[in-house]
């Protein structure tokens, strides 16, 4: 923890604290800007998981501060109850094994693999709007 004033890092930490499930991604759930973010969103949506989403693209400092905070270099990053769950690889592995549903306290849907449902229900947070 730095004692310097760091409004971006503070805003990120606050968002992680205030949202039970939060995904930092490229783009937003309705229009992911990267395949890894898209797959992670699809896994969460397949579980009907409610989640907040933050687009890291509008300001490079968001990614920089997020990675410094989480000690994780890549995007997306999924947090649950303040803890890093993982990036796309880990989330997909956990989804396929049923661990993701378990971790998030949700029911694994019966039957097929990832059905990609309609987007919706998860508004981007717009963290960048609170930084100026």
């Amino acid at each position, binding site marked *: 923890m730095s004692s310097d004033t760091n409004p971006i890092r503070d805003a990120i930490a606050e968002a992680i604290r205030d949202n039970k499930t939060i995904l930092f991604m490229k783009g937003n759930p309705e229009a992911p800007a990267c395949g890894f973010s898209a797959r992670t969103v699809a896994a969460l949506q397949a579980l009907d998981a409610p989640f907040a989403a933050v687009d890291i693209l509008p300001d490079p400092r968001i990614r920089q501060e997020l990675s410094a905070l989480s000690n*994780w*270099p*890549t995007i997306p990053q999924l947090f649950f109850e303040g803890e890093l769950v993982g990036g796309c*690889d*880990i989330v997909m*592995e956990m989804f396929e094994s049923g661990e993701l549903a378990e971790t998030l306290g949700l029911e694994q849907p019966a039957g097929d693999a990832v059905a990609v449902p309609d987007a919706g229900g998860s508004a981007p947070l717009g963290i960048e709007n609170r930084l100026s």
Partner: protein
Amino acid sequence: MPTTDEIKRRIEAAIPESTAEVEDWTGTGDHLRATVVSPAFAGLSRIAQHRLVYDVFGAEIGGPIHALSLTTRVPEQA
């Protein structure tokens, strides 16, 4: 941009007794996928296992290495 061979060599040099398979996922050299098997992963969470591999490359991840997709295993599970 590091080649798949270079990524493989660096992982295997840095992580004890590891073997790494690295492939170019998209054929464009910027989305690489690595499967790394090492006894060094035993007892670690997936996050800690992936961090060990990411730490080999530091700030190159997201820079010269645009994306490195990981699967990590201890040998018994391989």
